[in-house]
Protein backbone atom coordinates (compact mmCIF):
# COMPACT_ATOMS: atom_id res chain seq x y z
CA UNK A 1 0.00 0.00 0.00
CA UNK A 2 2.81 2.36 -0.80
CA UNK A 3 0.48 4.40 -2.98
CA UNK A 4 -1.25 5.86 0.03
CA UNK A 5 1.91 7.52 1.15
CA UNK A 6 2.46 9.35 -2.06
CA UNK A 7 -1.04 10.74 -1.90
CA UNK A 8 -0.10 13.27 0.68
CA UNK A 9 3.60 13.78 1.17
CA UNK A 10 3.21 15.26 4.62
CA UNK A 11 0.98 12.46 5.75
CA UNK A 12 3.20 9.97 4.01
CA UNK A 13 6.17 11.00 6.10
CA UNK A 14 4.14 10.70 9.24
CA UNK A 15 3.14 7.19 8.27
CA UNK A 16 6.72 6.13 7.75
CA UNK A 17 7.86 7.24 11.17
CA UNK A 18 4.85 7.46 13.45
CA UNK A 19 5.47 9.77 16.37
CA UNK A 20 5.17 8.00 19.69
CA UNK A 21 1.79 8.56 21.30
CA UNK A 22 0.28 10.26 18.26
CA UNK A 23 -3.16 8.86 17.31
CA UNK A 24 -2.88 6.32 14.51
CA UNK A 25 -3.79 7.97 11.27
CA UNK A 26 -6.22 6.15 9.01
CA UNK A 27 -5.09 6.00 5.41
CA UNK A 28 -6.86 8.30 3.03
CA UNK A 29 -8.48 5.48 1.05
CA UNK A 30 -9.83 3.88 4.21
CA UNK A 31 -11.29 7.24 5.17
CA UNK A 32 -12.98 7.49 1.78
CA UNK A 33 -14.35 3.97 2.10
CA UNK A 34 -15.81 4.76 5.53
CA UNK A 35 -17.54 7.82 4.17
CA UNK A 36 -18.78 5.88 1.15
CA UNK A 37 -20.18 3.13 3.37
CA UNK A 38 -22.50 5.60 5.04
CA UNK A 39 -24.02 6.58 1.68
CA UNK A 40 -26.91 4.15 1.22
CA UNK A 41 -27.56 4.99 -2.42
CA UNK A 42 -23.89 4.54 -3.32
CA UNK A 43 -23.89 1.19 -1.55
CA UNK A 44 -26.96 0.15 -3.52
CA UNK A 45 -25.07 1.13 -6.67
CA UNK A 46 -22.03 -0.85 -5.58
CA UNK A 47 -24.22 -3.87 -4.79
CA UNK A 48 -25.82 -3.83 -8.25
CA UNK A 49 -22.45 -3.40 -9.95
CA UNK A 50 -21.09 -6.34 -7.95
CA UNK A 51 -23.99 -8.45 -9.23
CA UNK A 52 -23.28 -7.38 -12.80
CA UNK A 53 -19.59 -8.23 -12.42
CA UNK A 54 -20.44 -11.62 -10.91
CA UNK A 55 -22.85 -12.27 -13.79
CA UNK A 56 -20.05 -11.52 -16.25
CA UNK A 57 -17.59 -13.79 -14.45
CA UNK A 58 -19.95 -16.74 -14.03
CA UNK A 59 -21.91 -16.28 -17.26
CA UNK A 60 -20.80 -19.66 -18.59
CA UNK A 61 -22.07 -21.43 -15.47
CA UNK A 62 -25.47 -19.78 -15.82
CA UNK A 63 -25.96 -20.49 -19.51
CA UNK A 64 -23.82 -22.18 -22.15
CA UNK A 65 -22.71 -19.78 -24.89
CA UNK A 66 -22.83 -22.10 -27.90
CA UNK A 67 -26.02 -24.04 -27.19
CA UNK A 68 -28.17 -21.46 -25.36
CA UNK A 69 -26.91 -17.95 -26.08
CA UNK A 70 -26.32 -18.02 -29.84
CA UNK A 71 -27.95 -21.24 -31.05
CA UNK A 72 -31.25 -20.57 -32.78
CA UNK A 73 -34.38 -22.44 -31.77
CA UNK A 74 -37.09 -21.22 -34.11
CA UNK A 75 -39.77 -23.46 -32.57
CA UNK A 76 -39.67 -21.33 -29.44
CA UNK A 77 -39.40 -17.89 -31.02
CA UNK A 78 -40.87 -14.75 -29.42
CA UNK A 79 -42.28 -16.52 -26.40
CA UNK A 80 -43.28 -14.46 -23.40
CA UNK A 81 -41.69 -14.86 -19.97
CA UNK A 82 -42.29 -18.32 -18.49
CA UNK A 83 -40.79 -20.74 -15.99
CA UNK A 84 -38.51 -22.11 -18.69
CA UNK A 85 -37.54 -18.75 -20.20
CA UNK A 86 -37.61 -16.24 -17.35
CA UNK A 87 -37.55 -13.20 -19.62
CA UNK A 88 -38.97 -14.88 -22.71
CA UNK A 89 -37.27 -15.61 -26.02
CA UNK A 90 -36.22 -13.40 -28.92
CA UNK A 91 -36.97 -13.57 -32.64
CA UNK A 92 -34.64 -16.58 -33.03
CA UNK A 93 -35.99 -18.43 -30.02
CA UNK A 94 -32.98 -17.65 -27.85
CA UNK A 95 -33.32 -17.23 -24.09
CA UNK A 96 -33.28 -13.48 -23.39
CA UNK A 97 -32.18 -13.95 -19.78
CA UNK A 98 -29.15 -15.97 -20.86
CA UNK A 99 -28.31 -13.38 -23.51
CA UNK A 100 -28.57 -10.51 -21.04
CA UNK A 101 -26.26 -12.37 -18.62
CA UNK A 102 -23.68 -12.96 -21.37
CA UNK A 103 -24.18 -9.39 -22.57
CA UNK A 104 -22.71 -8.13 -19.29
CA UNK A 105 -19.31 -9.29 -20.56
CA UNK A 106 -19.34 -7.08 -23.63
CA UNK A 107 -20.77 -4.07 -21.82
CA UNK A 108 -18.34 -4.28 -18.91
CA UNK A 109 -15.38 -4.89 -21.15
CA UNK A 110 -16.11 -2.00 -23.48
CA UNK A 111 -17.07 0.22 -20.55
CA UNK A 112 -13.97 -0.42 -18.47
CA UNK A 113 -11.39 -0.73 -21.25
CA UNK A 114 -12.52 2.31 -23.21
CA UNK A 115 -12.47 4.42 -20.05
CA UNK A 116 -9.03 3.05 -19.20
CA UNK A 117 -7.72 3.97 -22.66
CA UNK A 118 -9.31 7.41 -22.40
CA UNK A 119 -7.84 8.02 -18.94
CA UNK A 120 -4.34 7.06 -20.05
CA UNK A 121 -4.47 9.17 -23.22
CA UNK A 122 -6.50 12.09 -21.88
CA UNK A 123 -4.90 12.07 -18.46
CA UNK A 124 -1.41 12.03 -19.95
CA UNK A 125 -2.17 14.90 -22.31
CA UNK A 126 -3.89 16.88 -19.56
CA UNK A 127 -1.02 16.34 -17.13
CA UNK A 128 1.57 17.46 -19.69
CA UNK A 129 -0.54 20.48 -20.69
CA UNK A 130 -1.13 21.55 -17.12
CA UNK A 131 2.42 20.92 -15.93
CA UNK A 132 4.33 22.66 -18.70
CA UNK A 133 1.77 25.35 -19.49
CA UNK A 134 2.54 27.92 -22.16
CA UNK A 135 2.71 26.83 -25.79
CA UNK A 136 2.44 23.10 -25.14
CA UNK A 137 -0.67 23.69 -23.06
CA UNK A 138 -2.12 25.88 -25.78
CA UNK A 139 -1.52 23.40 -28.57
CA UNK A 140 -2.86 20.38 -26.66
CA UNK A 141 -5.94 22.11 -25.35
CA UNK A 142 -6.85 23.68 -28.72
CA UNK A 143 -6.71 20.22 -30.28
CA UNK A 144 -8.93 19.00 -27.44
CA UNK A 145 -11.32 21.87 -28.18
CA UNK A 146 -11.65 20.56 -31.72
CA UNK A 147 -12.61 17.14 -30.40
CA UNK A 148 -15.04 18.75 -27.99
CA UNK A 149 -16.64 20.64 -30.87
CA UNK A 150 -18.05 17.37 -32.14
CA UNK A 151 -20.77 15.78 -30.00
CA UNK A 152 -19.15 12.61 -28.63
CA UNK A 153 -21.75 10.22 -30.06
CA UNK A 154 -21.21 11.78 -33.49
CA UNK A 155 -17.45 11.39 -33.23
CA UNK A 156 -17.82 7.77 -32.15
CA UNK A 157 -20.20 7.11 -35.05
CA UNK A 158 -17.78 8.67 -37.53
CA UNK A 159 -14.84 6.62 -36.23
CA UNK A 160 -16.69 3.29 -36.18
CA UNK A 161 -18.28 3.85 -39.57
CA UNK A 162 -14.87 4.54 -41.07
CA UNK A 163 -12.88 1.80 -39.35
CA UNK A 164 -15.58 -0.86 -39.46
CA UNK A 165 -17.91 -2.13 -36.76
CA UNK A 166 -16.14 -4.49 -34.38
CA UNK A 167 -15.35 -4.67 -30.69
CA UNK A 168 -11.88 -3.15 -30.92
CA UNK A 169 -12.93 -0.19 -33.06
CA UNK A 170 -15.93 0.39 -30.86
CA UNK A 171 -13.75 0.65 -27.76
CA UNK A 172 -11.30 2.89 -29.57
CA UNK A 173 -14.07 5.16 -30.85
CA UNK A 174 -15.65 5.55 -27.44
CA UNK A 175 -12.25 6.08 -25.81
CA UNK A 176 -11.17 8.74 -28.31
CA UNK A 177 -14.44 10.61 -28.03
CA UNK A 178 -13.99 10.94 -24.27
CA UNK A 179 -10.27 11.78 -24.23
CA UNK A 180 -10.88 15.57 -24.05
CA UNK A 181 -13.01 15.18 -20.91
CA UNK A 182 -10.18 13.52 -19.01
CA UNK A 183 -7.59 15.89 -20.42
CA UNK A 184 -9.62 18.79 -19.05
CA UNK A 185 -10.22 17.23 -15.65
CA UNK A 186 -6.58 16.29 -15.15
CA UNK A 187 -5.26 19.59 -16.48
CA UNK A 188 -7.50 21.53 -14.09
CA UNK A 189 -6.30 19.62 -11.06
CA UNK A 190 -2.68 19.70 -12.17
CA UNK A 191 -2.93 23.48 -12.38
CA UNK A 192 -3.98 23.67 -8.73
CA UNK A 193 -1.21 21.30 -7.60
CA UNK A 194 1.62 22.48 -9.83
CA UNK A 195 2.57 25.52 -7.77
CA UNK A 196 2.26 23.98 -4.34
CA UNK A 197 5.26 23.84 -2.06
CA UNK A 198 5.81 20.10 -2.07
CA UNK A 199 6.28 20.17 -5.83
CA UNK A 200 8.77 22.97 -5.43
CA UNK A 201 10.50 20.86 -2.77
CA UNK A 202 10.65 17.86 -5.10
CA UNK A 203 12.15 20.03 -7.80
CA UNK A 204 14.62 21.51 -5.34
CA UNK A 205 16.00 18.09 -4.45
CA UNK A 206 16.51 17.43 -8.16
CA UNK A 207 13.57 15.21 -9.12
CA UNK A 208 13.06 14.97 -12.88
CA UNK A 209 9.91 16.30 -14.53
CA UNK A 210 8.76 12.77 -15.27
CA UNK A 211 9.24 11.73 -11.68
CA UNK A 212 7.39 14.79 -10.41
CA UNK A 213 4.49 14.16 -12.77
CA UNK A 214 4.18 10.45 -12.05
CA UNK A 215 5.09 10.29 -8.35
CA UNK A 216 3.68 13.55 -7.06
CA UNK A 217 1.20 15.16 -9.41
CA UNK A 218 -0.79 12.25 -10.81
CA UNK A 219 -1.49 10.58 -7.43
CA UNK A 220 -2.78 13.91 -6.18
CA UNK A 221 -5.27 14.42 -8.94
CA UNK A 222 -6.69 10.90 -8.86
CA UNK A 223 -9.95 11.70 -7.11
CA UNK A 224 -11.63 13.75 -9.86
CA UNK A 225 -10.43 11.16 -12.38
CA UNK A 226 -11.95 8.31 -10.34
CA UNK A 227 -15.30 10.10 -10.16
CA UNK A 228 -15.21 10.95 -13.84
CA UNK A 229 -14.16 7.37 -14.58
CA UNK A 230 -17.14 5.83 -12.78
CA UNK A 231 -19.50 8.13 -14.66
CA UNK A 232 -17.47 7.49 -17.82
CA UNK A 233 -18.04 3.72 -17.65
CA UNK A 234 -21.77 4.47 -17.51
CA UNK A 235 -21.45 6.74 -20.52
CA UNK A 236 -19.41 4.16 -22.43
CA UNK A 237 -21.98 1.42 -21.81
CA UNK A 238 -24.72 3.77 -23.03
CA UNK A 239 -22.70 4.65 -26.13
CA UNK A 240 -22.03 0.96 -26.84
CA UNK A 241 -25.72 0.21 -26.63
CA UNK A 242 -26.55 3.23 -28.78
CA UNK A 243 -24.01 2.37 -31.47
CA UNK A 244 -25.08 -1.27 -31.52
CA UNK A 245 -28.67 -0.11 -31.76
CA UNK A 246 -27.97 1.64 -35.06
CA UNK A 247 -25.91 -1.34 -36.24
CA UNK A 248 -22.46 0.14 -35.68
CA UNK A 249 -21.47 -1.75 -32.58
CA UNK A 250 -21.37 -5.38 -31.65
CA UNK A 251 -22.56 -7.53 -34.54
CA UNK A 252 -25.07 -10.40 -34.22
CA UNK A 253 -25.28 -13.11 -33.06
CA UNK A 254 -23.10 -11.96 -30.19
CA UNK A 255 -25.34 -10.85 -27.30
CA UNK A 256 -25.14 -7.11 -26.66
CA UNK A 257 -27.88 -5.17 -24.89
CA UNK A 258 -28.29 -2.42 -27.48
CA UNK A 259 -28.22 -4.89 -30.38
CA UNK A 260 -30.84 -7.02 -28.60
CA UNK A 261 -33.04 -3.96 -28.28
CA UNK A 262 -32.63 -3.21 -31.96
CA UNK A 263 -33.48 -6.80 -32.89
CA UNK A 264 -36.72 -6.69 -30.94
CA UNK A 265 -37.77 -3.40 -32.44
CA UNK A 266 -39.70 -4.90 -35.36
CA UNK A 267 -41.58 -7.23 -33.03
CA UNK A 268 -42.67 -4.50 -30.62
CA UNK A 269 -46.30 -5.09 -31.50
CA UNK A 270 -46.31 -8.81 -30.67
CA UNK A 271 -43.44 -9.32 -28.25
CA UNK A 272 -42.93 -6.43 -25.84
CA UNK A 273 -40.44 -8.34 -23.70
CA UNK A 274 -37.73 -8.50 -26.37
CA UNK A 275 -37.05 -4.76 -26.15
CA UNK A 276 -38.21 -4.16 -22.59
CA UNK A 277 -35.78 -6.36 -20.62
CA UNK A 278 -32.47 -5.48 -22.27
CA UNK A 279 -33.41 -1.80 -21.89
CA UNK A 280 -34.24 -2.25 -18.22
CA UNK A 281 -30.88 -3.98 -17.74
CA UNK A 282 -29.05 -1.07 -19.33
CA UNK A 283 -30.98 1.42 -17.21
CA UNK A 284 -30.35 -0.38 -13.92
CA UNK A 285 -26.64 -0.81 -14.67
CA UNK A 286 -26.20 2.84 -15.63
CA UNK A 287 -28.22 3.95 -12.62
CA UNK A 288 -25.98 1.88 -10.34
CA UNK A 289 -22.83 3.38 -11.85
CA UNK A 290 -24.24 6.89 -11.53
CA UNK A 291 -25.20 6.29 -7.89
CA UNK A 292 -21.71 5.00 -7.15
CA UNK A 293 -20.11 7.86 -9.06
CA UNK A 294 -22.13 10.47 -7.15
CA UNK A 295 -21.32 8.71 -3.88
CA UNK A 296 -17.61 8.61 -4.72
CA UNK A 297 -17.64 12.29 -5.50
CA UNK A 298 -19.08 13.09 -2.09
CA UNK A 299 -16.79 10.62 -0.32
CA UNK A 300 -13.63 11.84 -2.04
CA UNK A 301 -14.37 15.49 -1.52
CA UNK A 302 -16.73 16.08 1.42
CA UNK A 303 -16.50 19.82 0.89
CA UNK A 304 -18.52 19.57 -2.30
CA UNK A 305 -21.50 17.99 -0.58
CA UNK A 306 -24.39 20.28 0.14
Amino acid at each position, binding site marked *: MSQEMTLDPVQGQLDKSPAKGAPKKRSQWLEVWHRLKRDKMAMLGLFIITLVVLAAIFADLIADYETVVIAQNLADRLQGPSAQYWLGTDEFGRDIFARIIHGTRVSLMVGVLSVAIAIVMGGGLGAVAGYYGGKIDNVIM*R*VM*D*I*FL*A*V*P*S*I*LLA*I*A*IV*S*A*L*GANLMNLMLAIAISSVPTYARVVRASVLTIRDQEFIEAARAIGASDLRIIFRHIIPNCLSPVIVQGALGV*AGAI*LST*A*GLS*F*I*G*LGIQPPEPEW*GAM*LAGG*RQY*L*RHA*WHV*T*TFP*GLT*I*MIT*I*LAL*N*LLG*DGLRDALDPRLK*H
Partner: protein
Amino acid sequence: MHRFILKRLLLLIPVLLGVSLLVFAIMSFTPGDPAQLILGENAPPEAVAELREEMGLNDPFLLRYARFVGNAATGDLGQSYTSGRDVFDEIFSRFPNTLILAALGVVIAVIIGIPIGIISATRQYSMIDSGSMFFALLGVSMPNFWLGLMMILLFSVNLGWVPSGGYSSWSSLIMPAITLGTGSAAIITRMTRSSMLEVIRQDYIRTARAKGVAENVVINRHALKNALIPVITVIGLQFGMLLGGAVLTETVFSWPGVGRMMVDAIRQKDAPTVLGTVVFLATTFSLVNLLVDLLYGFVDPRIKSQYA
Protein backbone atom coordinates in the same frame (compact mmCIF):
# COMPACT_ATOMS: atom_id res chain seq x y z
CA MET B 1 -18.44 43.63 -26.75
CA HIS B 2 -18.37 43.77 -30.56
CA ARG B 3 -14.68 43.02 -30.48
CA PHE B 4 -15.36 40.08 -28.22
CA ILE B 5 -17.96 38.69 -30.61
CA LEU B 6 -15.66 39.21 -33.56
CA LYS B 7 -12.79 37.53 -31.75
CA ARG B 8 -14.93 34.53 -30.86
CA LEU B 9 -16.19 34.25 -34.43
CA LEU B 10 -12.64 34.28 -35.74
CA LEU B 11 -11.66 31.62 -33.21
CA LEU B 12 -14.41 29.47 -34.64
CA ILE B 13 -12.60 29.18 -37.98
CA PRO B 14 -9.65 27.07 -36.77
CA VAL B 15 -12.04 24.92 -34.75
CA LEU B 16 -14.21 24.25 -37.80
CA LEU B 17 -11.16 23.56 -39.95
CA GLY B 18 -9.93 21.17 -37.31
CA VAL B 19 -13.29 19.43 -37.03
CA SER B 20 -13.60 19.00 -40.77
CA LEU B 21 -9.99 17.78 -41.06
CA LEU B 22 -10.63 15.30 -38.27
CA VAL B 23 -13.79 13.96 -39.86
CA PHE B 24 -12.31 14.05 -43.36
CA ALA B 25 -9.29 12.06 -42.17
CA ILE B 26 -11.48 9.53 -40.37
CA MET B 27 -13.74 9.12 -43.37
CA SER B 28 -10.86 8.63 -45.78
CA PHE B 29 -10.02 5.46 -43.85
CA THR B 30 -13.31 3.99 -44.96
CA PRO B 31 -12.60 0.79 -46.84
CA GLY B 32 -14.16 0.37 -50.26
CA ASP B 33 -13.69 2.29 -53.46
CA PRO B 34 -16.26 5.06 -54.01
CA ALA B 35 -15.85 4.78 -57.78
CA GLN B 36 -16.63 1.08 -57.59
CA LEU B 37 -19.60 1.84 -55.36
CA ILE B 38 -21.06 4.29 -57.87
CA LEU B 39 -20.51 2.13 -60.94
CA GLY B 40 -21.57 -1.12 -59.31
CA GLU B 41 -19.63 -4.29 -58.65
CA ASN B 42 -19.55 -5.53 -62.21
CA ALA B 43 -18.12 -2.38 -63.73
CA PRO B 44 -14.98 -2.85 -65.86
CA PRO B 45 -11.76 -1.93 -64.01
CA GLU B 46 -10.86 0.69 -66.64
CA ALA B 47 -14.12 2.55 -66.09
CA VAL B 48 -13.55 2.49 -62.33
CA ALA B 49 -9.99 3.78 -62.74
CA GLU B 50 -11.23 6.53 -65.05
CA LEU B 51 -13.90 7.63 -62.61
CA ARG B 52 -11.39 7.59 -59.76
CA GLU B 53 -9.19 9.95 -61.73
CA GLU B 54 -12.16 12.13 -62.62
CA MET B 55 -13.29 12.35 -58.98
CA GLY B 56 -9.79 13.27 -57.91
CA LEU B 57 -9.54 10.28 -55.63
CA ASN B 58 -5.93 9.64 -56.68
CA ASP B 59 -4.81 13.05 -55.51
CA PRO B 60 -2.80 13.45 -52.28
CA PHE B 61 -4.79 13.64 -49.05
CA LEU B 62 -4.15 17.31 -48.32
CA LEU B 63 -5.14 18.34 -51.82
CA ARG B 64 -8.41 16.43 -51.52
CA TYR B 65 -9.03 18.03 -48.14
CA ALA B 66 -8.28 21.52 -49.46
CA ARG B 67 -10.69 20.92 -52.33
CA PHE B 68 -13.35 19.76 -49.88
CA VAL B 69 -12.93 22.86 -47.71
CA GLY B 70 -12.95 25.15 -50.74
CA ASN B 71 -16.17 23.60 -52.01
CA ALA B 72 -17.76 23.47 -48.56
CA ALA B 73 -17.10 27.17 -48.06
CA THR B 74 -19.24 27.88 -51.12
CA GLY B 75 -21.97 25.56 -49.92
CA ASP B 76 -21.01 22.58 -52.05
CA LEU B 77 -20.71 19.37 -50.07
CA GLY B 78 -20.70 17.15 -53.13
CA GLN B 79 -23.29 14.69 -54.39
CA SER B 80 -24.59 11.60 -52.68
CA TYR B 81 -23.04 8.39 -54.05
CA THR B 82 -26.34 6.59 -53.81
CA SER B 83 -29.03 9.09 -54.80
CA GLY B 84 -26.88 11.54 -56.76
CA ARG B 85 -28.61 14.40 -54.99
CA ASP B 86 -26.79 17.45 -53.72
CA VAL B 87 -25.75 16.79 -50.10
CA PHE B 88 -26.01 20.43 -49.06
CA ASP B 89 -29.57 20.78 -50.41
CA GLU B 90 -30.60 17.53 -48.80
CA ILE B 91 -29.22 18.62 -45.41
CA PHE B 92 -31.01 21.95 -45.58
CA SER B 93 -34.30 20.41 -46.59
CA ARG B 94 -34.10 18.17 -43.51
CA PHE B 95 -32.56 20.57 -41.03
CA PRO B 96 -35.85 22.30 -40.05
CA ASN B 97 -37.13 18.92 -38.87
CA THR B 98 -34.11 18.41 -36.64
CA LEU B 99 -34.33 21.99 -35.42
CA ILE B 100 -37.99 21.84 -34.45
CA LEU B 101 -37.44 18.56 -32.61
CA ALA B 102 -34.45 19.89 -30.66
CA ALA B 103 -36.25 23.14 -29.84
CA LEU B 104 -39.31 21.34 -28.56
CA GLY B 105 -37.13 18.91 -26.61
CA VAL B 106 -35.39 21.81 -24.86
CA VAL B 107 -38.71 23.54 -24.14
CA ILE B 108 -40.02 20.37 -22.52
CA ALA B 109 -36.78 19.96 -20.55
CA VAL B 110 -36.98 23.55 -19.27
CA ILE B 111 -40.66 23.34 -18.35
CA ILE B 112 -39.99 20.20 -16.33
CA GLY B 113 -36.48 20.88 -15.08
CA ILE B 114 -36.51 24.42 -13.70
CA PRO B 115 -39.65 24.25 -11.49
CA ILE B 116 -38.69 20.85 -10.09
CA GLY B 117 -35.14 22.03 -9.45
CA ILE B 118 -36.41 25.10 -7.56
CA ILE B 119 -38.86 23.09 -5.46
CA SER B 120 -36.17 20.53 -4.65
CA ALA B 121 -33.74 23.21 -3.55
CA THR B 122 -36.22 25.07 -1.37
CA ARG B 123 -37.20 21.84 0.35
CA GLN B 124 -33.80 20.21 0.54
CA TYR B 125 -33.81 16.68 1.99
CA SER B 126 -37.63 16.52 1.91
CA MET B 127 -39.51 13.64 0.29
CA ILE B 128 -40.14 15.80 -2.78
CA ASP B 129 -36.44 16.54 -3.04
CA SER B 130 -35.29 12.92 -2.76
CA GLY B 131 -38.05 11.78 -5.07
CA SER B 132 -37.28 14.26 -7.80
CA MET B 133 -33.54 13.71 -7.50
CA PHE B 134 -34.10 9.99 -7.91
CA PHE B 135 -36.19 10.56 -11.03
CA ALA B 136 -33.59 12.95 -12.35
CA LEU B 137 -30.96 10.26 -11.92
CA LEU B 138 -33.26 7.78 -13.62
CA GLY B 139 -33.66 10.23 -16.49
CA VAL B 140 -29.89 10.47 -16.95
CA SER B 141 -29.51 6.70 -16.72
CA MET B 142 -32.13 5.76 -19.28
CA PRO B 143 -30.99 5.09 -22.85
CA ASN B 144 -33.22 7.55 -24.68
CA PHE B 145 -33.73 5.27 -27.68
CA TRP B 146 -35.16 2.70 -25.28
CA LEU B 147 -37.45 5.28 -23.67
CA GLY B 148 -38.65 6.08 -27.19
CA LEU B 149 -39.39 2.43 -27.92
CA MET B 150 -41.23 2.02 -24.62
CA MET B 151 -43.36 5.07 -25.41
CA ILE B 152 -44.14 3.68 -28.86
CA LEU B 153 -45.16 0.42 -27.18
CA LEU B 154 -47.49 2.16 -24.74
CA PHE B 155 -48.90 5.11 -26.66
CA SER B 156 -48.88 3.88 -30.26
CA VAL B 157 -49.15 0.11 -30.14
CA ASN B 158 -51.34 -0.33 -27.07
CA LEU B 159 -53.30 2.90 -26.81
CA GLY B 160 -53.09 4.10 -30.40
CA TRP B 161 -52.99 7.78 -29.37
CA VAL B 162 -50.09 8.99 -31.49
CA PRO B 163 -48.31 7.75 -34.62
CA SER B 164 -45.22 5.62 -33.95
CA GLY B 165 -42.95 7.34 -36.44
CA GLY B 166 -42.48 9.62 -39.41
CA TYR B 167 -43.60 13.23 -39.55
CA SER B 168 -47.19 13.49 -40.70
CA SER B 169 -48.81 15.89 -38.26
CA TRP B 170 -47.99 17.83 -35.10
CA SER B 171 -48.90 14.77 -33.02
CA SER B 172 -45.89 12.96 -34.52
CA LEU B 173 -43.73 15.48 -32.68
CA ILE B 174 -44.89 14.64 -29.16
CA MET B 175 -43.08 11.39 -28.48
CA PRO B 176 -39.75 12.21 -30.16
CA ALA B 177 -39.63 15.55 -28.34
CA ILE B 178 -40.32 13.95 -24.95
CA THR B 179 -37.76 11.23 -25.67
CA LEU B 180 -35.18 13.83 -26.58
CA GLY B 181 -36.06 16.16 -23.71
CA THR B 182 -36.02 13.64 -20.85
CA GLY B 183 -32.27 13.42 -20.41
CA SER B 184 -31.93 17.20 -20.65
CA ALA B 185 -34.78 17.69 -18.18
CA ALA B 186 -32.89 15.54 -15.69
CA ILE B 187 -29.66 17.49 -16.19
CA ILE B 188 -31.44 20.86 -15.94
CA THR B 189 -33.23 19.74 -12.76
CA ARG B 190 -29.97 18.80 -11.08
CA MET B 191 -28.25 21.97 -12.21
CA THR B 192 -31.10 24.25 -11.09
CA ARG B 193 -31.20 22.58 -7.69
CA SER B 194 -27.50 22.83 -6.97
CA SER B 195 -27.25 26.37 -8.28
CA MET B 196 -30.27 27.42 -6.25
CA LEU B 197 -28.86 25.80 -3.12
CA GLU B 198 -25.69 27.78 -3.54
CA VAL B 199 -27.50 31.08 -4.01
CA ILE B 200 -29.97 30.80 -1.15
CA ARG B 201 -27.09 30.48 1.30
CA GLN B 202 -25.77 33.89 0.37
CA ASP B 203 -25.90 36.96 2.55
CA TYR B 204 -28.14 39.04 0.33
CA ILE B 205 -30.83 36.38 0.57
CA ARG B 206 -30.57 36.44 4.35
CA THR B 207 -30.83 40.23 4.20
CA ALA B 208 -33.93 40.02 2.05
CA ARG B 209 -35.51 37.58 4.48
CA ALA B 210 -34.49 39.73 7.43
CA LYS B 211 -36.19 42.73 5.81
CA GLY B 212 -39.36 40.70 5.88
CA VAL B 213 -39.68 40.02 2.18
CA ALA B 214 -42.16 37.22 1.56
CA GLU B 215 -40.48 33.86 1.00
CA ASN B 216 -41.87 33.35 -2.49
CA VAL B 217 -40.61 36.79 -3.51
CA VAL B 218 -37.19 35.98 -2.06
CA ILE B 219 -37.05 32.82 -4.10
CA ASN B 220 -38.63 34.01 -7.33
CA ARG B 221 -37.20 37.53 -7.52
CA HIS B 222 -33.97 37.58 -5.56
CA ALA B 223 -32.59 34.09 -5.71
CA LEU B 224 -33.84 32.83 -9.06
CA LYS B 225 -32.21 35.59 -11.10
CA ASN B 226 -28.74 34.67 -9.94
CA ALA B 227 -29.38 30.96 -9.72
CA LEU B 228 -30.45 30.75 -13.35
CA ILE B 229 -27.20 32.12 -14.78
CA PRO B 230 -25.34 28.79 -14.83
CA VAL B 231 -28.59 27.01 -15.74
CA ILE B 232 -28.91 29.09 -18.90
CA THR B 233 -25.51 27.84 -20.01
CA VAL B 234 -26.58 24.27 -19.42
CA ILE B 235 -29.80 24.82 -21.35
CA GLY B 236 -27.83 26.22 -24.28
CA LEU B 237 -25.35 23.37 -24.23
CA GLN B 238 -28.20 20.88 -24.08
CA PHE B 239 -29.77 22.50 -27.12
CA GLY B 240 -26.50 22.07 -28.97
CA MET B 241 -26.29 18.45 -27.86
CA LEU B 242 -29.84 17.74 -28.99
CA LEU B 243 -29.22 19.32 -32.38
CA GLY B 244 -26.02 17.40 -32.93
CA GLY B 245 -26.82 14.19 -31.15
CA ALA B 246 -30.44 13.42 -31.94
CA VAL B 247 -29.24 10.57 -34.15
CA LEU B 248 -30.67 7.78 -32.02
CA THR B 249 -34.03 9.43 -31.36
CA GLU B 250 -34.43 10.25 -35.03
CA THR B 251 -33.67 6.62 -35.88
CA VAL B 252 -36.21 5.24 -33.39
CA PHE B 253 -39.01 7.46 -34.69
CA SER B 254 -38.03 7.37 -38.38
CA TRP B 255 -37.80 11.14 -38.11
CA PRO B 256 -36.82 12.82 -41.40
CA GLY B 257 -33.98 14.79 -39.83
CA VAL B 258 -30.27 15.23 -40.45
CA GLY B 259 -29.29 12.61 -37.84
CA ARG B 260 -31.23 9.86 -39.52
CA MET B 261 -29.94 10.97 -42.90
CA MET B 262 -26.45 10.33 -41.51
CA VAL B 263 -27.31 6.86 -40.16
CA ASP B 264 -28.88 5.87 -43.48
CA ALA B 265 -25.82 7.16 -45.33
CA ILE B 266 -23.51 5.12 -43.09
CA ARG B 267 -25.49 1.97 -43.86
CA GLN B 268 -25.20 2.67 -47.59
CA LYS B 269 -21.51 3.66 -47.34
CA ASP B 270 -22.39 7.01 -48.86
CA ALA B 271 -19.23 8.89 -47.82
CA PRO B 272 -20.04 12.43 -49.05
CA THR B 273 -23.34 12.39 -47.20
CA VAL B 274 -21.74 11.05 -44.01
CA LEU B 275 -18.98 13.63 -44.20
CA GLY B 276 -21.40 16.44 -45.00
CA THR B 277 -23.83 15.61 -42.21
CA VAL B 278 -21.13 15.14 -39.56
CA VAL B 279 -19.40 18.39 -40.47
CA PHE B 280 -22.74 20.18 -40.62
CA LEU B 281 -23.90 18.89 -37.22
CA ALA B 282 -20.54 19.63 -35.62
CA THR B 283 -20.64 23.16 -37.05
CA THR B 284 -24.13 23.71 -35.70
CA PHE B 285 -23.03 22.42 -32.33
CA SER B 286 -20.05 24.81 -32.23
CA LEU B 287 -22.18 27.76 -33.33
CA VAL B 288 -24.74 27.08 -30.61
CA ASN B 289 -21.96 26.83 -28.04
CA LEU B 290 -20.61 30.18 -29.21
CA LEU B 291 -24.07 31.74 -28.92
CA VAL B 292 -24.36 30.34 -25.40
CA ASP B 293 -21.06 31.97 -24.44
CA LEU B 294 -22.21 35.29 -25.86
CA LEU B 295 -25.58 35.02 -24.17
CA TYR B 296 -23.80 34.33 -20.92
CA GLY B 297 -22.14 37.72 -21.20
CA PHE B 298 -25.53 39.41 -21.56
CA VAL B 299 -27.06 37.58 -18.63
CA ASP B 300 -24.15 38.13 -16.29
CA PRO B 301 -22.57 41.58 -16.76
CA ARG B 302 -19.61 40.55 -14.60
CA ILE B 303 -18.49 38.21 -17.37
CA LYS B 304 -18.96 40.77 -20.11
CA SER B 305 -16.72 43.26 -18.34
CA GLN B 306 -13.86 40.79 -18.48
CA TYR B 307 -13.75 40.98 -22.25
CA ALA B 308 -14.75 44.58 -22.83
